[in-house]
């Protein structure tokens, strides 16, 4: 048989909520972005670039959520990232000195110092502080297929009671994508793979050709899918849906049985921010002095023991190579098996959160690069491709209505609708309905009122981030999530109130605009329903 017997689509979903606090000199949750840049985005860029330089052909599909794009482009956060990196480099310099009589740790201190100075070089000299540009270039070279996503990672199935809210999340998301990548999006990442029947029509309306669902979204679709999740299906609207393959997902996702839990890999939960003497580490903590993860971690997972052994980067890299080989071997067998029972080549959809690679699973970017190399050089059973390429090869697919589904725990809406967060929906729904009413009532406002209306729309979108409901559920940083919901609701109320006043306080409006400063292109009319066909 000539040519590959199947296709593997690796999909990296990159998302962080919009965290931007110009009103504070130093803000704990802004570190989410800084850690992701150092540990995930820069390492991925370096590896993708290296693969291109070595002329290894590969295809990878990536989402960049509009909130993340907005933060990567924000001048204040760029300055703060640089400051964050400088301070970490300073800490590693002290660590080199402190560990000079502790050989395994001294070596690691040098290792981190080298990594961080290289990151600084890459960020400042190679990319000049702009991380969107290199991803865009990879997309223009055809290596990365970028996917659009919702404006603020809003969880769409729980917005269904007010369809204009769904439409705005999608519409603004697509606009942000076009600004960043200079092209129309072909595919769409539904936040948390949250699909509600009918939302494919909204995607169709903005020109999207495919979306990604969790396995049961397709498997429980009706009529029954002939090929399970191993071929795309068409929704009644004509938008294609690809279903997640659970077998390949699990080997990477699972903390226990998956690769990331291997004893040789770096232990995430042993960080010098917690381990070292308080006075020594204090200058590198945040304003309030609470201990936190610095990203400098000296131990390997070792096993289910508190007695952790020092990390050995060479040994970990060996292990990553073995795991890449194992993943490839398993896909070969899986695809051969599927090919024997299907009358066409199967497609395997493997989506992961990008932050898993590097941030949580330190060796993840190495594993990914090794997997790509091995896939190209060491086997012929399958090839890497994007969903678009698969659809071009196989344009005839079964038509069915996918089922409501998400990739959250339980598979439906439970994670975002439970005792810890259900209270927020009455506020979020009311807010979106009021936004639509305001948009209908003000078709032609003066310039200042247009600014107020646009800012109201930003507050609605920011409050709808699925992150807040998720954080309230998991109870980590819950106070922050509660504060954010409260702030956006309160700002929305105040703005709506201003709209009815004869005089608008422009200075106050400007401060709100500076805080919640994303989506400068936003037009609140995306919420309007009056005059729609």
């Amino acid at each position, binding site marked *: 048989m000539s040519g590959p017997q199947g296709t593997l689509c690796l999909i990296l979903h990159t998302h962080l909520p919009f965290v931007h606090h110009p009103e504070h000199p130093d803000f704990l949750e802004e570190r989410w972005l800084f850690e992701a840049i150092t540990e995930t985005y820069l390492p991925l860029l370096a590896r993708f670039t290296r693969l291109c330089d070595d002329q290894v052909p590969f295809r990878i599909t990536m989402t960049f959520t509009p909130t993340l794009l907005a933060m990567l482009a924000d001048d204040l956060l760029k300055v703060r990232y640089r400051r964050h990196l400088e301070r970490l480099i300073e800490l590693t310099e002290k660590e080199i000195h402190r560990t000079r009589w502790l050989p395994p740790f001294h070596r690691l201190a040098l290792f981190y110092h080298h990594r961080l100075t290289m990151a600084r070089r890459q960020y400042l000299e190679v990319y000049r502080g702009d991380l969107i540009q290199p991803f865009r270039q990879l997309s223009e070279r055809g290596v990365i297929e970028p996917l659009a996503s919702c404006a603020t990672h809003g969880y769409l199935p729980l917005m269904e009671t007010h369809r204009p809210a769904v439409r705005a999340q999608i519409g603004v998301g697509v606009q942000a994508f076009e600004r960043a990548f200079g092209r129309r999006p072909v595919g769409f990442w539904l936040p948390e793979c949250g699909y509600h029947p009918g939302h494919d029509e909204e995607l169709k309306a903005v020109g999207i050709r495919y979306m990604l669902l969790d396995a049961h979204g397709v498997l429980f679709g*009706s009529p*029954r899918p*002939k090929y*399970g999740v191993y071929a795309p299906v068409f929704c009644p609207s004509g938008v294609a849906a690809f279903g997640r393959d659970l077998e390949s997902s699990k080997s990477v996702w699972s*903390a226990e049985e998956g690769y990331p839990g291997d004893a040789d890999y770096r232990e995430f939960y042993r960080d010098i921010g917690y381990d070292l003497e308080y006075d020594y580490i204090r200058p590198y903590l945040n304003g309030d002095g609470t201990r936190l993860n610095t990203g400098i971690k000296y131990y390997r997972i070792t096993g289910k023991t508190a007695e952790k052994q020092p990390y050995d980067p060479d040994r970990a890299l060996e292990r990553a190579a073995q795991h890449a080989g194992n993943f490839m071997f398993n896909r070969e067998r899986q695809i051969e098996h599927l090919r024997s029972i299907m009358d066409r080549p199967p497609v395997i959809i493997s989506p992961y959160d990008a932050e898993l690679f590097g941030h949580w699973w330190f060796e993840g970017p190495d594993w990914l690069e090794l997997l790509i190399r091995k896939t190209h050089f060491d086997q012929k059973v399958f090839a890497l491709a994007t969903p678009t390429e698969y659809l071009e090869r196989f344009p005839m697919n079964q038509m*069915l209505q996918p089922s*409501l589904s998400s990739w959250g725990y339980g*598979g439906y809406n439970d994670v975002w*609708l439970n005792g810890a967060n259900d209270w927020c929906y009455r506020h979020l729904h009311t807010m979106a309905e009021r936004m639509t009413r305001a948009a209908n009532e003000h078709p032609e406002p003066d310039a200042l009122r247009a600014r107020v209306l646009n800012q109201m729309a930003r507050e609605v979108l920011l409050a709808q981030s699925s992150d807040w409901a998720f954080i309230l559920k*998991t109870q980590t940083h819950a106070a922050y999530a509660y504060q954010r919901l409260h702030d956006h609701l309160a700002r929305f109320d105040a703005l709506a109130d201003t709209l009815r006043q004869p005089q608008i306080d422009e200075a106050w409006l400007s401060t709100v605009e500076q805080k919640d400063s994303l989506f400068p292109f936003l037009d609140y009319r995306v919420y309007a329903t009056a005059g729609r066909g």
Partner: protein
Amino acid sequence: MVLMVKDPLWLFAYWEVRPETERSVRSQLLPSEIPDLRSVLRVYDVTDVEFPTEPAHRSFDIPLSGLATSWYIETNAPNRSFIVEIGLLTASGRFFMLARSNRVTTPRAGPSEIIDEAWATTDELFWKLIGSSALLGGSSPMVWAQMLSRNAVLGSWSSGALTQTARPAIVRGFWCRVNADVIIYGATDPKARVRIQGQPVAVRKDGTFSLRVTLPEGTQTMTIEATSSDGRQTQSMTPIVSLTAAGSLGAEPGIHPPPAARPSIRRRP
């Protein structure tokens, strides 16, 4: 009043009743009705029905405690549509609606019973394709598929009947669960159409039909209706089945599967 889907078996409703609405409803009450008045949620199964112009398939009431403004509703019914009303119920059974919700449809909890001829698949093939994913367990609804394929309950699928599947219940350590299913079966003219609880059921070539349903606790009436091929004659029968459990097994909502293998690791600890 807003109604939302939580999962195939549960809904969530929240509401706000305007004081003037409640006042105007209360003004219609007889003085004797006021002492025993209760607030209730009335849950209607409105699958394929234009409610309220057409009657609902069934409804049930949930008594509310005084100050509740939201409620989780167990329907135990995947792939059905619901509308909920909040209202006041008198001791004599008169119901005064205060607010009505939007309509929602619960998702399926298992594969569809409908097969497209152009993309026909056999049960064996479908399970082979699902098989590899199903054996993984974890947090996904596919867990049940594992139970089904392991027990080889394929017979009930091949009948083409509507099937309610057993719900997943994997708990670490010792556990025990009991669910009851009933199988309704019979035979009629092979050309007749049969509906059980309003849902069409496939009649085999020899005129037999069967349907397996999960039996919730309490008393259920199941209407079986056979209509002749010309539509002129209808026979119906309504068996009443009741399930009461003695003993002390945990009730359904108290038992949770183990923590997710999936994506919970995303955000910072």
